[in-house]
């Protein structure tokens, strides 16, 4: 699953630390999600979408490999 959290953070002018604080996780978790090393839970994904005030699928996109 791809995501554009880094772009969304830049739009909102948020650091990883600030976003992590808003969604109640560690900065390393945000970093792992941005690097696509970790796929967040539905709850965390919805929290991130709520912070950016965007629909979920505008931030997270499925890849072809996710369907296999």
């Amino acid at each position, binding site marked *: 699953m791809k995501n554009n959290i880094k772009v969304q953070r830049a739009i909102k002018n948020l650091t990883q630390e600030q976003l992590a604080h808003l969604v109640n996780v560690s900065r390393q978790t945000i970093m792992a*999600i941005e690097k696509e090393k970790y796929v967040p839970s539905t709850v965390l994904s919805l929290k991130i979408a709520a912070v950016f005030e965007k629909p979920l699928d505008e931030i997270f996109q499925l890849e072809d490999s996710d369907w296999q």
Partner: protein
Amino acid sequence: MKSNYLFSPVFKKIGWILFVIGACFMTLYLCGVIHDLLPCTVFSIIPASDGFFGKGGFLLRNDGWEDEISIILVSVALLCISFAREKDEDEYISHLRLESWIWSILANTILLIAGTLFVYGFLFMYFAWFYFFSLFLLFICRFYYELYKMRRNKDEE
């Protein structure tokens, strides 16, 4: 998403203290420095000399407590360390925790097979003692290595 099966973070410290005491005690016992400590009558479910299905059933016998104390101390200590919540525990750390358990179960099985194939005679008893705790030890090594790798990654933005 909170993992409610975990203990408070303070249990990590308690666990390490118990582990040091238990490991020292176990080493002294296995080296033969202490034996027949606090000998008393204990309750044995399976008679020691008659094998698993031996006659006699429940039995009272005389024994020391050093091996029981050391095994229980080290087991409780490792359980406390393994199940202590990290101060910044979140879902990514829970994910690392789960992955580390899976890895340690696989590694522990490989260790058992390797030990069975390559360790013989009296040495196998020491291997069996180590195997009592190896699942926890492997998990602790793997999990804290994963946490170390995660935390040293400082690159921002």
